[in-house]
């Protein structure tokens, strides 16, 4: 047994977190910054954080993740990291020539009280930022929120610091803040909008950055990413769609405050209903109809589920990950007649409990869920020990529970360290729904095949 010390008796913990279902803010800021074209993310703190964040992102995306660090030592920790950041600006622009440096703080620089706005201003005043180059910054203390908060803060910084203001007549373009999803998901959302003939600005956009082709050269700044011009123009757009409240609402709000672009918080478009809502809203706003080709995709998804419904119905599922993902996935699972019974997310936010209640309350009254401090995978595992489930959905760390408890497992969310493909195939939209249903069915049906007696072994299923 790999997690042999986990038992079914849930004891109330007041301080200790075991096997967290979250990580820290800066990694989210780094991921978001990679979704800007020509951008070098920079971690203002000691170099360990940056090494950890780069490693974690690299293991997940299996792509180069380039980022700088201020490499604090004891001196910087006592006297402040201004000198380190100024030196870093100079070095980064000289050596790596990015268009933008996106700085985020760490626990260390936050605890010291370094002010990124002030240091950046100083760098500009002293001519340390070359002409035509841009620096944006976000405060991302990890003792607040989670990796999702960091992502959200960097997205908000993009809007706040880049968007133009004062444009009264808005263009027909819409903004989309996609949330912390895979490059393939961002690509898929853009494809759907393009099929609808909607012009859009997506920020951040990691497609063509973290799924770059092999060419024999290391393209330090790959083709993808939202450009600075697009970020500026986001202030002229008619509306911002924030996909997922936790990851994306802050950017929408920032853009409203700065440029008076109205925003709408939507569920992450995972599953049939959430995708329906997103496309319907965009269609209504832009007067661009959803084309038949997309409606057909939806039809295929509904068709597949209808055909295979008996394998899905009533199956109990445990999930862990980020609130935006969990809410949409739970809704989708219920549409599949499945039962999302356990959900945990380390990411705090009071709205989670009420929102989840609205989704599962009636359909799965037995469901248990929790978010914030100590809503960890240890707790979820204990729930599973109390009463088992048929399927696990979540990040790589679930494989230990899966093996110990012999429960089928499909990987979703962040991080996925032990499989490939998640960055290439979407889970959003109807196409993503098809992929998810395929994965769920494969997992459940492989299990049925494995467990059936010889006489019950089926050819046709």
């Amino acid at each position: 047994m790999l997690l042999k010390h986990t038992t079914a008796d849930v004891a109330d913990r007041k301080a200790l977190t075991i096997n967290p279902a979250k990580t820290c803010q800066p990694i989210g800021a780094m991921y978001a910054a990679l979704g800007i074209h020509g951008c070098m993310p920079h971690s203002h703190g000691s170099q360990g954080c940056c090494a950890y964040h780069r490693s974690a992102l690299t293991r997940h995306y299996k792509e180069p993740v380039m980022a700088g660090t201020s490499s604090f030592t004891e001196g910087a920790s006592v006297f402040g990291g201004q000198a380190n950041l100024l030196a870093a600006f100079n070095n980064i622009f000289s050596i790596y020539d990015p268009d933008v440096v996106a700085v985020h703080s760490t626990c260390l620089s936050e605890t010291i009280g370094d002010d990124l706005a002030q240091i950046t201003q100083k760098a500009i005043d002293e001519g340390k930022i070359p002409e035509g180059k841009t620096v944006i910054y976000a405060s991302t203390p990890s003792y607040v929120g989670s990796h999702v908060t960091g992502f959200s803060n960097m997205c908000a910084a993009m809007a706040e610091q880049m968007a133009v203001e004062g444009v009264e007549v808005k263009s027909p373009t819409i903004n989309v803040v996609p949330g912390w999803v895979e490059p393939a998901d961002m690509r898929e959302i853009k494809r759907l909008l393009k099929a609808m003939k909607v012009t859009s600005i997506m920020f951040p956009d990691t497609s063509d950055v973290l799924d770059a082709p092999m060419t024999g050269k290391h393209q330090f700044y790959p083709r993808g990413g939202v450009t600075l011009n697009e970020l500026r123009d986001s202030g002229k757009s008619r509306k911002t769609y924030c996909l997922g409240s936790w990851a994306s609402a802050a950017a929408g709000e920032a853009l409203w405050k700065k440029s008076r672009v109205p925003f709408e918080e939507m569920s992450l478009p995972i599953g049939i209903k959430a995708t329906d809502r997103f496309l319907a809203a965009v269609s209504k706003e832009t007067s661009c109809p959803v084309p038949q080709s997309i409606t057909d995709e939806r039809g295929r998804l509904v068709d597949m589920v209808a055909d295979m419904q008996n394998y899905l119905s009533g199956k109990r599922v445990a999930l862990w990950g980020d609130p935006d993902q969990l809410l949409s996935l739970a809704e989708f699972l219920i549409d599949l007649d499945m039962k999302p019974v356990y959900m945990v997310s380390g990411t705090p936010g009071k709205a989670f409990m009420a929102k989840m209640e609205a989704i599962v309350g009636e359909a799965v009254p037995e469901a248990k869920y929790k978010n914030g401090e100590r809503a960890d995978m240890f707790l979820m595992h204990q729930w599973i020990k109390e009463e088992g489930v048929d399927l696990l959905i979540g990040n790589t760390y679930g494989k230990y529970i899966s093996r110990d408890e012999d429960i089928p497992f499909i990987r979703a969310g962040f991080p996925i360290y032990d499989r490939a493909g998640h960055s290439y195939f979407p889970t959003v939209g109807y196409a993503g729904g098809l992929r998810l249903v395929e994965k769920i069915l494969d997992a459940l049906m492989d299990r049925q095949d494995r467990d059936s007696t010889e006489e019950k072994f089926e050819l046709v299923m």
Partner: protein
Amino acid sequence: MLEKYPAKVARKRQKAIVINDKTASQEIQANVRTVPGIITQRGCTYAGCKGVVLGPTRDIINLTHGPIGCGFYSWLTRRNQTTVQGQTPENQENFMTYCFSTDMQDSNIVFGGEKKLRQSIEEAYALVHPKAIGVFATCPVGLIGDDIHQVSKECTEKFGDCNVFAFSCEGYKGVSQSAGHHIANNQLFKHVIGTREDAPEGKYKINLLGEYNIGGDAFVIEDILAKCGITLIASFSGNSAYNKFAHSHHADLNAIMCHRSINYVAEMMETKYGIPWIKVNFIGAESSAKSLRKIAQYFGDAELIDRVEKVIAEEMIPVEEARKAALPKTEGKSAMLFVGGSRAHHYQDLFTELGMKSIAAGYEFGHRDDYEGREIIPSIKIDADSRNIEELTVTKDEERFRSRLSDEQKAKLEKAGLKFKDYEGLMTDMESETLVIDDLSHYEMEVLIKEYKPDIFCAGIKEKYAVQKMGVPLKQLHSYDYGGPYAGFEGAINFYKDIAKMTSSKIWGLIGAPWEKEKTLSASVVHDTKPVKKEEKESA
């Protein structure tokens, strides 16, 4: 290579780059601060302490005191393997699959985190009753002034049957992971080593230091030692357990694998208990044989020497077979190694066995002695960053000190070629005209690859995909790309096979579509080599 650097940076980096000359004694700059923004391979003190040295011990609860990230990223990501098989039921704890953290919140930063730490320790103790709990400080802890040592001490006293001890390994404490190794060594020495009196059975008793059981390396070494009749008391720290550390002072020899991360413990054990240490290397078949012979020579017993020779002879048969099978795919090729604090040296032996030349190498967190050899230690200037790290004053333990060798015996062994307390460093073993670079930056790495086009590049996960995008396969020498083990004879066979697979993979030949290649061939079309930009560059 230095052209693009601002003048100050160029001056600094120049000292870290040496064209090796075996005939001269050369100095390299190492273990100094990293240039901010340069893109370094290095990690932090916490990573070196919690992640590297303490991580691989299965029955100590590693509790990270800090915000969630540090603990999260060091959770199971280093491939330290462990087994509880064959252990008595009461020794079958394994906490390595768990991540314990105090998950500090802003209120803890403002009002202090000691209360939450104490409560967390108590909850961990109540939950599983471990023998020991190690508390690891992350960056903010040092700044807000939590006294983790005091809290730990109080908990130890309160529990009575659980040793709680702490590590002030805040990430900023040093210039790299290396500082964390030192801190880990100190605390292990202070709180664990020598706390258990019963002596293990065995005729030839050794400890293995600096072997972290990545990918099962320690399992292989354990097997070979057992075959030879050598008793391994403790490995620091791979497949290791608290109780083994606790009575490791009964060993008669300390054999060091990774000199950088663990030489401190060896030195302190020698002073306190009288255990001599020698440098060994179980990476490479020849080096493994050499290391076994060294150990046998130390004990000087004909029976052991014969048995070791027999084991080597036996093991070398399949090794030679595998080597011959790999050679056609590897011979004459070149490798570069930039990793860790000993691996960039050790792995060159395996490449030599494959007929490959190591044309450039360097460490991520080595010190000058790891490059130039231990004899230069007195000439190393102690800078402010190193001075930060506690140097324990160790004295002879009058009761437990046991001289393992008389001066005479020692002199005799030395005369016969067995060197004690000796490490010659990486530069001594590399050929002249090869490049040695400390704390390689990303930019320097790209220049090296473009200029020298190595057939294989060895580094870590952060470098892997950038190098491969350039069409050069990268072998991770931290994680072995989830393969291995690579230690010992069995490991050498695995390595030969894996490298042959990489140097002969067909995929590298498929980079570029046929029509792209046609384009570059026809003189009329100019191939655009500039970075692809989505739109013209934004300018002022």
